[in-house]
């Protein structure tokens, strides 16, 4: 830099080459030049944006790794339990309602209710579903009323202060198989059959897990011992589950003629349970697609309006127009 600024021409350069010490005083000064030696690479290295994006990239990679493999990278971990004790990871099944704007298959819900009624309801309650919830989802009002009337509910007290039994109304909730938890445990060798109202929301893997569980009964592999009265299921945390396999081909007879294979019944009952856990599911997706359309339209419009409002401010030029002296 110094040399370049000092060099006034080929003659001077020649002079310098001949004897550096013989430079005239006028040229032998040090220039305090403020012209920055900016190179694009240096400013790229020093910019905040680079720093921020590199940090973000690093944090993102670590987070992604953790998400994929379940542990932080470069840190050795020792587990007290074997991975099989957390159960197999259920596969992703192609549910008819899996997409962003896909509703439940309501015919499947109706079949699933039949499976629940004929198979699951022997042990599992469905406390949060009332007969009226089926209306407009899987059954007509008359069907729901007829189903409710098949069940006797205790009501009262009447004029004499006595409790009495009456046929169910559609405002009543589905009856459970056991009067209380103790009775349920006593009837199932100490294992409590969970209430199924929210089971899809209450288990990791949701509908995939429930489907994998009820279709996943296999013989225990070599070396795995299952206690008497328990059953082996690789998808269940721990492997040993109190519930035995219940779904077998042809167990129920569907009213719409669908072949009642094990997987068909499992798919229907899981769809039904998914509906029971998320009755708002269809409306939610419908409102979701509306909200996405409306808000993205609003975003684009507001960007336009912002530009429109700022245009006169951004390209404003301030000019000094001195007043004219009247004397001239």
């Amino acid at each position, binding site marked *: 830099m110094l040399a370049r600024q000092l060099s006034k021409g080929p003659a001077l350069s020649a002079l310098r080459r001949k004897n550096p010490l013989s430079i005239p005083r006028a040229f032998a000064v040090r220039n305090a030049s403020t012209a920055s030696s900016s190179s694009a690479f240096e400013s790229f290295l020093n910019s905040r944006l680079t720093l921020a994006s590199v940090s973000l990239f690093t944090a993102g990679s670590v987070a992604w790794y953790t998400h994929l493999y379940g542990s932080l990278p470069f840190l050795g971990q020792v587990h007290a339990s074997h991975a099989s004790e957390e159960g197999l990871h259920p596969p992703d099944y192609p549910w008819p309602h899996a997409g962003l704007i*896909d*509703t*439940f298959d*309501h015919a499947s819900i109706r079949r699933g209710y039949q499976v629940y009624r004929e198979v699951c309801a022997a042990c599992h309650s469905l406390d949060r579903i009332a007969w009226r919830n089926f209306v407009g989802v899987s059954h007509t009002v*008359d069907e729901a009323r007829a189903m409710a009337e098949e069940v006797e509910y205790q009501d009262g007290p009447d004029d004499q202060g006595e409790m009495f039994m009456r046929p169910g109304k559609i405002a009543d909730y589905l009856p459970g198989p056991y009067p209380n938890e103790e009775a349920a445990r006593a009837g199932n060798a100490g294992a409590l059959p969970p209430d199924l109202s929210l089971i899809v929301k209450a288990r990791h893997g949701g509908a995939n897990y429930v489907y994998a569980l009820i279709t996943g009964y296999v013989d225990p592999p070599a070396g795995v011992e299952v206690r008497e009265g328990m059953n082996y299921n690789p998808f269940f945390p721990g492997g040993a589950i109190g519930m035995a396999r219940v779904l077998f081909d042809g167990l129920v007879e569907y009213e719409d003629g669908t072949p009642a294979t094990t997987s068909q019944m499992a798919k229907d009952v899981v769809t039904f349970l998914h509906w029971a856990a998320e009755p708002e599911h*269809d409306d939610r*997706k419908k409102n979701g*697609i509306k909200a996405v*359309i*409306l808000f993205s339209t609003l975003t684009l419009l507001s960007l336009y309006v912002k530009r429109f409002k700022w245009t006169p401010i951004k390209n404003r030029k301030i000019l000094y127009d001195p007043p004219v002296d009247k004397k001239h």
Partner: protein
Amino acid sequence: MSFSTTLYNTFFRRNSIFVGTVFAGAFAFGIGFDTGATAFFDRWNRGKQWKDIRHKYVEAAEEEE
């Protein structure tokens, strides 16, 4: 007179008409958008919703009676 000038003179010249148009349009848009989105949604999910399969069971119930 060009289309844009006509548009301007019809809707935008007076603020009262402009604001009135916006609110009336919002009302109409709300109904129209709802209808359109529902139509699309029903088309997308054809055959899956209750209203698509309801007729099977209503007729069956009437035949029994």
